[in-house]
């Protein structure tokens, strides 16, 4: 979980300044979040062009609705939820949304000891593409943002148990995919 207090404070200040009518505050929020949101949207939309379109619509929706965000400290989950809504509208007719999710015991504990090495980023990126959309989405949020389960559940509008099982499955697949790259 990200505990960078100064960064959280900066973002809260930017959200409040946006509410005061400071256009440069929203520009700064876009600059900060653009790379991460684009990466997330590219994992959750079929084509790169769809991701760019979704990102643009994300900013338009965020610019309009940011004043309604009750707690500025919850900006991260909120902006990912806005982005997800834009991606979902793209995927409404896609078969991927009806992809089968492997049934797992939601009480099964996550292997908290395992985390991919940042040096394996390229392999992780390639392995993400092999996951189903539902698994890829939660795995991306977890790996990109180190987002806790409760926050991921808020973004994807699913129960924590469902998110937990999806993430467990995704991490298991990623670990298996990364294992050959570590073979001597």
């Amino acid at each position, binding site marked *: 979980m*990200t505990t960078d207090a100064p960064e959280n404070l900066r973002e809260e200040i930017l959200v409040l300044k946006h509410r005061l009518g400071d256009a440069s505050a929203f520009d700064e929020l876009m600059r900060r979040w653009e790379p991460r949101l684009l990466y997330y949207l590219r994992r959750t939309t079929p084509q790169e062009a769809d991701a760019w379109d979704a990102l643009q619509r994300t900013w338009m929706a965020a610019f309009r609705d940011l004043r309604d965000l009750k707690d500025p400290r919850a900006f991260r989950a909120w902006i990912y939820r806005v982005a997800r809504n834009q991606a979902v509208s793209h995927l409404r007719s896609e078969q991927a949304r009806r992809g089968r999710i492997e049934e797992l015991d939601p009480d099964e504990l996550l292997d908290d000891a395992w985390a991919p090495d940042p*040096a394996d980023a390229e392999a992780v990126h390639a392995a993400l593409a092999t996951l189903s959309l539902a698994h890829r989405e939660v795995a991306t949020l977890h790996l990109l943002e180190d987002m806790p389960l409760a926050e991921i559940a808020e973004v994807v509008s699913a129960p924590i148990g469902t998110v937990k099982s999806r993430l467990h499955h995704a991490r298991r697949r990623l670990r298996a995919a990364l294992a050959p790259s570590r073979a001597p």
Partner: protein
Amino acid sequence: MNTGNDLTLGERLIRVEPEDAELRRRYEEGKLALRERRLTPAQKAAGWLSAPLNLGLALLVVWRLGGAGPGMPPEWIAFHVAGAAGLLAVGGWTLHVLLGGGRVTWRADRAFQVVGVVAVVALAAAAFEVGRSLDDRRAAFGMLGVAVVMLAGAGAGLAVEWARRLRLESRVAALENELRLAELSREVAGPRDGRARPGSDESPAPS
């Protein structure tokens, strides 16, 4: 600024994937649309109703001013002129926005709010004056009531907006102080593995 060896997994993931330059260019052009907002259908309907009303009232005020003759005190002439100018400004601005497809920049929006408040006050003054000149007491009372309601509405709107801005500005000031303290604490504590999120001040956004 994070060096290559200090990057988190998230930062590295972002850098792995190249982006299409043409898509990026189209996206940047699209972002310009954020500089403006579009009126909702309800706002457009209200605009089409209020614009002719404003312009009509302005003409009425000018007509009454013209018909008043040289006996009207100068201060009342000024009230009439101000009222007519305010009504013309609001009505004209509304028509300009509507004819432009209902699109208005946020900066112009703020300017319009100021003009709007001034116009409401001017309109209230004009309504008050019209009410004073009516022989029919019932009609006069109604017009005076309209003037009072307008003034009360403008005053309440200003008060609410002032309170909202005061609350936000106070909160921003408090957070900025808290931020300075947090940064100072970090400097005093010395360098450590303080991983900044990708795209933050301490981590440059990928090109």
